């Protein structure tokens, strides 16, 4: 405002009181305008969140009948891979035998399954999002007989729990429900 003073020198001097009142008005208006601008930014940010149709994305139903003991299958649910494993008694025993103290992310096998025979987990490595190998036949299953993430070397056990490597948590368990003995609904 200093520069404007030269050009307005013939104008009357502003009284002190008027000066403060103007500053007060400017401050309130500035705050008010800033609030409005912030409110206007929110829709521009929120539009990037999942849209209503994405949130309502349909559930996936899987027929379990063709899956043989020991077999692992991969299904797609909301654009992500889900591992469905029909575990053998040995694998179940192995998973249950692990002491919680040994685990990076302590969780019992019981807490991760609804029926011990069926393990259903989201197949996205909790480190940086690759799909761990071990579902297809012949793939490396890692040191603990579960999955091995080739990207950065995380090892998961037969319950999908992280045992070794950089991943911080176990492979997550999605919401699912057994509609009948042979039909499961994920989501």
């Amino acid at each position, binding site marked *: 405002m200093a520069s404007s003073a030269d050009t307005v020198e013939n104008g*009357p001097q502003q009284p002190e009181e*008027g000066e403060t*009142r103007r500053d007060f*008005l400017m401050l*309130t208006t500035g705050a008010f305008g800033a609030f*409005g601008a912030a409110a206007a930014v929110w829709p521009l940010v929120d539009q990037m969140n999942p849209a209503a149709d994405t949130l309502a994305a349909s*559930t996936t139903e899987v*027929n379990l009948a063709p899956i043989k003991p020991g077999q692992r299958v991969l299904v797609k649910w909301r654009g992500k891979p889900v591992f469905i494993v029909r575990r053998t008694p040995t694998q179940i025993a192995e998973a249950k035998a692990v002491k919680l103290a040994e685990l990076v992310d302590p969780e019992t096998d019981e807490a991760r399954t609804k029926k011990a025979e069926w393990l259903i987990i989201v197949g996205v490595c909790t480190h940086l999002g690759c799909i761990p190998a071990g579902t297809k036949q012949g793939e490396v299953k890692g040191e603990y007989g579960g999955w091995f993430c080739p990207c950065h070397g995380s090892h998961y056990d037969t319950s999908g729990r992280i045992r070794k490597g950089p991943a911080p948590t176990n492979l997550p368990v999605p919401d699912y429900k057994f509609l009948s003995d042979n039909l499961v609904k994920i989501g």
Partner: protein
Amino acid sequence: MHKVSINFATIIVATVIATTSVFAAGNIVKPEKQNWSFSGLFGTFDRGALQRGFQVYNEVCAACHSARLLHYRNLKEIGFSEAQVKAIAASKEVTDGPNAEGEMFQRPARLSDRLVKPFPNEEAARAGNNGALPPDLTLMTKARVGGADYLHALLVGYKPAPKNMKLGEGMYYNLYFPGQQIAMPPPLVEGGVEYADKTKSTVDQMSRDLTTFLAWAAEPELEWRKRMGVKVILFLLILTGMLYGIKRKVWSDLH
């Protein structure tokens, strides 16, 4: 500046006259203006009318007309409970698949499905309707000049044709349809649906309910939009008033 404003006013008047007279052109009869629950600055959809309107759509219109931009989940917004909407959806079959055997299969509709269409494609729709294509209804109130008023006028506008008018094969006389000949038979008859809330189903009542439902289908954001609009405009009025205050203060140095 005084003269400027007079000239400016003349132009505005001329423009307004011009735009209003566009409506009067052609063989189109202007529909009567109705007082809708959703019109005006603060208008909201009458929930009862919306649910009755859906019933009319579902039991009458849906035989020929799709509303493909709506999903069953949307019906929760007009006051149906989740269980009610699930039941409505489950009563319709949709094609899904392929399954593990590579076959397409039928399953009951779910909340995330679009409203089931009466015909799989345009050709089937024409074949089932004497060659005429029943248009999709989702955007109807936005896609016609006159909007909701026109739709209501059309639905109740069936009359016997004037003596000197020769109607085409399979056509019906309707005062409000452009050209006065429409391929759609009068869709609404007295008592055509039995309303769940026991409202008497006159043609006028059904037409109003249906129009309200379709206005919602076209603009489901309307209530949110108007509510937000009132707040935004109030905010801007205050802010602009304050800016004017500062402007007066700043410029008072000069005069």
